[in-house]
């Protein structure tokens, strides 16, 4: 064990070597340390098993109002005897001179055979130099005296008189050194050495949010794969979130119970006249219903970031492009350990005359490889706006099962043609929290948004 002591510890040990049992108050005086330093020093020494703290209680006695009066002016029975010292007196005269205490004083004097009565006069029979209780009274005086120092028999004469003696219970600590400590040689003065082996308090590094770290990592992967990041609004007219993506207006995904509609807010401009005309025609022809422009103008919180990319493609009509969009999307769900109403999505497209489904699968495989997922497979699935459509399944070693990650496909001609996009568009997308959950080993997605400092301070930076 380390034998390096703090200055406080040294002073306490030295003092206790001289005077083996001391209260903290006594130590304050002997070491000239503050009460707080003494308290800390004792704690440290106790932890190192160098000091013993004995807690005990002391009963002290002091005088109350009547006790103090008797201390200064004598006990009532003393006063009685003094009055009778030179002459015998009438009972009525004594009563007048002593007042209310005459009765008890007279009773005591008679009982102890100090006085006697003859006819109507009272005379002194015996005059002791010290009456019972007087010794105690003198001993206590105006001080506080430990009960242990008092003659209990003598005390009993005055203890029960009203407001005579006050008993106090005081708890005290007594500190002494253990046998080990007694042999410690304290060298005076400071050597500069400290206890380098002792535990130190934790400090917390400020850090970026773990989910943001995952988002940054994903962003960087796609940028290095040749993709350019685009940013778009979270509030979108239905037109770009649904209609442009061939989702009919009576589709269940568009209902209030799945999508957040903004209360009483409609977009003024949703697209060019030609875009609106062509998209509405496609809907009427393919889905056979009355397409309502007011429905397309309703504002929603985007349900995916695909609305951002499709709008970008409609505005730029590139022949060759790789773009991606990353951001918050919303679903009207009950919040649970696996569902949030608001989460992050990455979504990207490749436009090119030679773009194929196998290229789309290749980009996915490369992305997963770079985030450390190598066990993947592809299954067919369905999305309203892509054909063919696939989903990636990745193997989760911890859960020992295949879990669904990104969805993907080639944009349907019903999506691209009305917007004047002529080259094939490969598209994919998916939730980022799911990937982050795999990385951080979380089972509850809500953890990312709880801003629980103990978690933020402890989550490892590198996963």
């Amino acid at each position: 064990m380390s034998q390096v002591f703090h200055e406080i510890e040294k002073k306490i040990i030295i003092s206790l070597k001289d005077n083996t049992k001391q209260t903290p108050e006594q130590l304050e005086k002997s070491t000239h340390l503050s009460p707080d330093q003494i308290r800390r020093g004792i704690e440290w020494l106790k932890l190192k098993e160098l000091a013993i703290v004995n807690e005990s209680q002391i009963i002290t006695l002091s005088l109350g109002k009547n006790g103090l009066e008797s201390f200064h002016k004598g006990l009532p029975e003393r006063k009685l005897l003094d009055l009778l010292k030179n002459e015998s007196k009438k009972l009525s005269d004594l009563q007048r001179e002593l007042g209310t205490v005459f009765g008890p004083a007279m009773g005591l004097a008679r009982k102890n055979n100090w006085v006697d009565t003859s006819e109507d006069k009272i005379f002194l029979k015996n005059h002791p130099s010290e009456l019972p209780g007087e010794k105690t009274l003198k001993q206590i005086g105006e001080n506080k005296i430990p009960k242990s120092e008092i003659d209990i028999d003598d005390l009993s004469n005055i203890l029960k008189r009203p407001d005579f003696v006050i008993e106090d219970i005081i708890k005290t600590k007594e500190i002494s050194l253990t046998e080990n400590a007694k042999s410690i040689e304290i060298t005076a003065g400071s050597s500069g050495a400290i206890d380098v082996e002792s535990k130190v308090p934790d400090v917390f590094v400020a850090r970026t949010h773990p989910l943001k770290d995952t988002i940054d990592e994903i962003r960087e992967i796609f940028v290095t794969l040749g993709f350019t990041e685009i940013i778009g609004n979270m509030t979108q007219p239905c037109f770009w979130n649904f209609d442009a993506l061939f989702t009919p207006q009576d589709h269940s995904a568009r209902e209030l119970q799945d999508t957040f509609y903004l209360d009483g807010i409609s977009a003024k401009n949703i697209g060019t006249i030609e875009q609106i005309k062509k998209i509405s025609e496609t809907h009427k022809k393919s889905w056979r219903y009355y397409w309502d422009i007011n429905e397309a103008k309703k504002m929603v919180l985007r349900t995916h970031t695909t609305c951002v990319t499709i709008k970008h493609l409609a505005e730029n009509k590139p022949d060759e492009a790789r773009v991606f969009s990353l951001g918050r999307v919303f679903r009207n769900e009950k919040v649970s350990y696996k569902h949030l109403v608001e989460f992050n999505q990455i979504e990207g497209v490749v436009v090119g005359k030679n773009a194929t489904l196998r290229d789309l699968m290749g980009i996915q495989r490369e992305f997963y490889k770079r985030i450390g997922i190598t066990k993947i497979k592809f299954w067919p699935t369905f999305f309203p706006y892509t054909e063919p459509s696939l989903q990636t399944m990745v193997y989760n070693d911890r859960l020992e099962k295949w879990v669904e990650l990104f969805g993907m496909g080639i944009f349907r001609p019903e999506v691209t043609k009305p917007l004047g996009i002529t080259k094939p568009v490969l598209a994919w997308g998916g939730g980022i929290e799911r990937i982050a959950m795999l990385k951080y080993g979380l089972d509850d997605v809500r953890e990312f948004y709880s801003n629980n400092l103990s978690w933020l301070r402890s989550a490892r930076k590198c996963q």
Partner: protein
Amino acid sequence: MPVVELSYSRLQKLLGKVSKKQISESLPFLGLDIESEDKDLVRVEYSPNRPDYSTDLGIALGLQGLFGIRSGAVKLNIKKSTDYAINVEQSVAKIRPFVTGIIAKNGRIDDYTIKQLMAMQEDLHFGIGRKRKKSSIGIHDLDKISFPLTYTTTKRDHKFIPLNSDHELTISDILVNTDVGRDYGAILGNSLQVPLILDSKKQTISFPPIINAATTTVTTKTKNLFVEVTGINKDDVEDMLSVVATILQTAGFTLVSTKITGAKNTSPKLESKKILINSGLINQMLGLNLTTTQIISSLKKSRLDASLKGKNIVCTIPSYRFDIFGPMDLVEEVSLGYGIQNLEPILSPSQTLGQTNPISIKLKSLSLTMIGLGYTEALNSSLTSKRVLYEMTNRKPINMISVLDSKSQEHTILRDSILPELLENLSRNIHTSYPQKLFETGTVFSQGNPISETTSFAGISAHQDATFTEIKSILQSALKTGFNLDTETKTFSHSIFEEGRTASVLVNGKIIGIIGEINSKTIENYKIRVPVVGFEISLSGLIFD
């Protein structure tokens, strides 16, 4: 996505010599996600565009194709007959104009089949029927009905004994007192006349789209079926009928036609359609080099018919596959028949150079600056609550942007500020060690034309000795180090801060935000026991547009 429950042993009976493992491994390649498995039973999710997968019979057709047991399109063999006529009266035109139907004879119906048919009916109603609004089905015991039928309308006091009842009810009673009446009555609106199918003895057969009559209830004793579909569009009702007809034929029934006339209604044809494709498109989209023979064989495995016509392939699509719109849908059918697992991913070199968005770069740089100043990054929802945004911080709720029908009380209002959420975060960490220093950058929303979205930056510091000076120093250093901007503060008043300890933040003479010591009432509301100081500024227009 809808779910259907399957039995492996029944699928094995329908398929022949195929193991349970082979079936379970192949289901995903039909686009069916296995949701749960329990011994012989397996529950799978199917896509709403494939209503034929709402029964095990339809799924068996798909699996036959994948296993090569049977390939090519399922042909409907419908016996022509004039015995089963439905006359449509003009009055239905205004409320539910179209009816169609088919007869299915000599089938065996056990409890399992009834269960599957009922489940299919419900799924069709919900999906392509758009909750019975577009189209709805009635399945009846044929032998309880006297043809010809009349599709007509009636008043709401018309009485009959509906399915699952033992006494007569009026239309109005049904709409008010039965579950189906309450769920679907709205489709009929306030119309005084409602649709009705009567037989030649004036017996009520069905009250579409709500409920059938009790007389025609299908039981395990039923041998012959009559299926009717009503709706608002002729193509939609025939699409739905084609799914039911295909499933019933697969279940062993013999189909017989109905004859429908009147008010623009005609007999259903349930004909297949033809789409022409060339192998070039398929190979280009899939990145393969398939021969026409391989393509034709793949399409057949997907239960379609295909043949070569010159350089093109003519694909014949049965009527129940109305999810197929054009050539791109056939590209997918080829990929499924060929097998997704046989497509090898390739990584072609990028023709473009990637670039991070300048906004992302600046926000990242700001984050790192704040980390250097000892602030931890928080992340909160943009969709939050009135309580957090306004009530707890005594801010006035003006021009709130709220969402309709949120399932969560905690997520109803779009945030116009980040600071209130950071304060909420502190309240959840009062038992964690101090100092606590948090920041967040993110989107805030305000009413506009139609809505403005800007990026906001907020920071907060909570500890025993937190002061205005401290937080001003932090903001000043962050903007100076990050973007070489000089910060000024001017006396200001804001309900989130303590009066006399509040300032507006200015850069180049323009107000960009607020800073100060958090109002003691707010701190009390959140039961935080240390002073809190904070700021929030708008980055839009400051470090990017």
